[in-house]
């Protein structure tokens, strides 16, 4: 097929511009081909494992039957979304999920930043290495092991904490089965387990700050607090923004592994989250369409929150994720 060339038509102007741009882009890509080659496995990974399965997310709108497959299962519209939103415990599930997620973010992040700054400020190299290793360790323990540890520490019968409480004449507290205490157990145990690991990012960001700034501050007789306030914190602000924004996308993920292991019947009212409900109703009751619909719901909410937070970040702090 040949295209008539009419220099005055808008279409052809756009076509020419497009061709020039494409050619430039291809040239640039060719010049940087080795960089593109390096990134290719990652791109393929994302296409195969992250974008490919998105096509199957359509079972959220179908009554999925394995024998019929994804494409031949009947369409049911928003039936599964409706089933989730009108389910008996919907409000409680959303509430619990948000409480855990937000609390872990609000309490966990400042602690990790504080740890990173403290490690960055210390001049005893061996001490820093020792502390770093010690606080990273819990991250490598599974929640099943952590449950055993928590049982030993918090058991009302012979747990360490309750032994102390009893020694001071107090009544033992059933931390793991008491609705009044369970949320704190979840939040604080998560902080205990993950804070050390989270410091890595902030520590890396701190190490990226130009030493000249600290040298100049020293010349100006800045106190350690002033150094932190005027150099360290502003220096890692972009990383803090980035992590906060990324966490917004996972706001409806409150930590399935942790809660599934720690919760029990007496604390369902304060511990049951969206993911544990999906496990019981979706996976164990063989309602995979419902499980996918809830996953879709979470993804959409996460995307909307990221977009809003990004806009706010750009407006308030003049920097965003994209």
């Amino acid at each position, binding site marked *: 097929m040949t295209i008539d060339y009419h220099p005055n038509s808008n279409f052809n102007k756009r076509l020419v511009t497009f061709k020039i741009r494409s050619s430039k882009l291809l040239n640039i890509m060719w010049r940087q*081909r080795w960089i593109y*080659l390096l990134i*290719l*496995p990652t791109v*393929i*990974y994302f296409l*195969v*494992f992250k974008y490919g399965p998105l096509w199957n997310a359509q079972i959220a709108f179908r009554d*999925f*039957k*394995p*024998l019929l*497959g994804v494409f031949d299962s009947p369409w049911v519209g928003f039936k599964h979304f409706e089933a989730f939103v009108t*389910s*008996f*415990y919907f409000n409680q599930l959303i509430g619990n999920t948000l409480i855990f997620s937000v609390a872990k973010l609000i309490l966990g992040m400042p602690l990790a930043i504080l740890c990173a700054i403290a490690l960055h400020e210390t001049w005893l190299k061996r001490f820093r290495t020792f502390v770093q290793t010690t606080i990273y360790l819990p991250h490598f323990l599974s929640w099943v092991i952590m449950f055993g540890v928590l*049982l030993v520490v918090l*058991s*009302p*019968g*012979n747990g360490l904490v309750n032994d102390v409480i009893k020694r001071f004449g107090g009544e*033992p507290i*059933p931390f*793991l*089965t008491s*609705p009044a205490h369970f949320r704190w157990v979840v939040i604080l145990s998560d902080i205990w387990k993950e804070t050390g690991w989270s410091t890595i990012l902030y520590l890396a960001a701190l190490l990226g700050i130009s030493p000249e700034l600290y040298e100049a501050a020293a010349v100006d007789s800045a106190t350690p607090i002033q150094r932190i306030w005027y150099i360290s914190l502003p220096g890692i602000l972009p990383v803090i923004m980035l992590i906060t924004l990324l966490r917004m996308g996972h706001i409806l993920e409150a930590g399935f592994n942790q809660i599934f292991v720690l919760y*029990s*019947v*007496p604390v*369902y*009212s304060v511990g*049951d989250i969206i993911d544990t*409900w999906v*496990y*019981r*109703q979706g*996976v*164990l*009751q*063989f309602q*995979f369409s419902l499980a996918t619909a809830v996953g879709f719901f979470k993804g959409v909410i996460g995307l909307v929150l990221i977009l809003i937070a990004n806009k706010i970040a750009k407006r308030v702090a003049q920097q965003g994720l994209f």
Partner: protein
Amino acid sequence: MKNWKYVLIAVVLVSTQLLAACAQEPAAPTAAPEVAATVAPVEPTAVPEPVDITLWAMATVTEAGPPPDDWIAYDRILEEVNVNLKYEILPTGSDGEAKLNAAAAANNLPDFMQMVSASNDPRGALYNLVQLGLIAQVDDMLALMPERTQKHYNDPLALSLSTFDGHLYGLPEPPPIPRREGLLIRKDWLDKLGLAVPTTPEELMAVAVAFTEQDPDGNGKKDTYGLGGFLNGDGMGTRFDFIMGAYGVAGMWDFDDAASFGLNVRNEKYPEALAFFNSLVEAKVIDPDWPTLKRDDFRARWKQGLFGIMWEDFAALSNKSNYTPFDENFPDAEWVPIPAPKGPYGDATYGVYTGRGQIFAVSQKAADEGKKEAIARLLEWMATDGYYLLGFGEEGVNFIIDANGNISTEGLDPTKAYTAAEFQPFTQMRNQLVFYNSTQEIAARYPNWTTINGRTMQPLTYLTFYQSQPWVDGRGIQVILPPANAADFLRYYTEGIVQFALGQKEVSDENWAEYLAGLDSLGAVEYEASAKQALIDAGLLK
């Protein structure tokens, strides 16, 4: 140009690696012998291709791990049945169910598999998969395995429960020894404190208080409790049925007759039973970790001597390998079985007998690939030539059959005996697919043995005692399918009961009525009606 070639090669290499990693395993070859036999005469030297069979089943001893790849049974199965068996151990409970369901969702079930259910409802799991068209009919397989059918598939009720729309879809293995759990008390503690065996809930409370307060183990510390237990199912689970049974409300359902059938929580004695349970909690005479404990945690605790009254399986208590840690800790201790306490209205029930056994099924995919005959060959072999190998190991090495026809390990290297912990991986199939509760089996599985202080331990004495107690016939529970909103309904049902038991909600008329109203709003009435109809249809409720 040269660079392009390198780029191309690199891309192809990376892509092929990734695609290979993502690719599914190649489909197992289909059985060929039948086709060969009908199409043309087979050369005398031709050996039919072995049939690949993938089996998913739970382990007999979960902590022991699978048999090694060079297990002699794999070779024997290949030689004698022409089956290339790939045996994979399924996790128990919800993990196993999740694995099975995930495979089903991908239409990638194994050829032959055990139905696993978090709520101990294998029939419900089978029903779900049958509804999805993923399970093959197995009526025609019974004729191919006459010996196994006679020994394993001989219970008309079990067969009818695996039959849907007139076709058999599941192979119901014989249930484990029925009524095998029971109530136990530390006799040495009773003797030390000069107490009698409790016969009523009030006496049970008094003994529990004494066990908690009066240092029954004599170590000078107040570190013991009256009772121990854990939650193992919906409502109060099954571990406290002896308490609920004292008020006539053991289990979830009232199976007495069609007129009274319904959820036991409708019974006015139910809140009374919960009030009594709550009094045990308030008196702090029950291990306070009971709502969070898993079964293994609970077992570790009685072996550490933490409490003096419990509900336990006879083998989990008294078999040598299970009892030894406790024996080493407390050589003078003794657990004795006791009758169920009699409640204020004269009720005394030990527990609910459900008669649930394991169900195995063949995937439709395997049937389509013509593997049913090979699976039947394998199962028949397990019940005949392979029976002793899979159940006890190699004769003369792992076991012997004595002059009386009993299985024995006398004169054998103890580390190689079939009873040794080291040998457990080699008999992982025995409880699921091999044993059928013959007299020889039971005598071999639960032999008498001598404790450290010379007392003869007789596991079957515990079993006999348990079985002689009053049990509710709850076999009907097998035909009751969960409601559509099972997660919400069962959470509300169980959470409410446990909250009353723990005292998080006061047991009062008002609170109880509110609880029942909530249950009704979740469809309890409709659930009861459908359960009743299912029982009547199955002839299990008159």
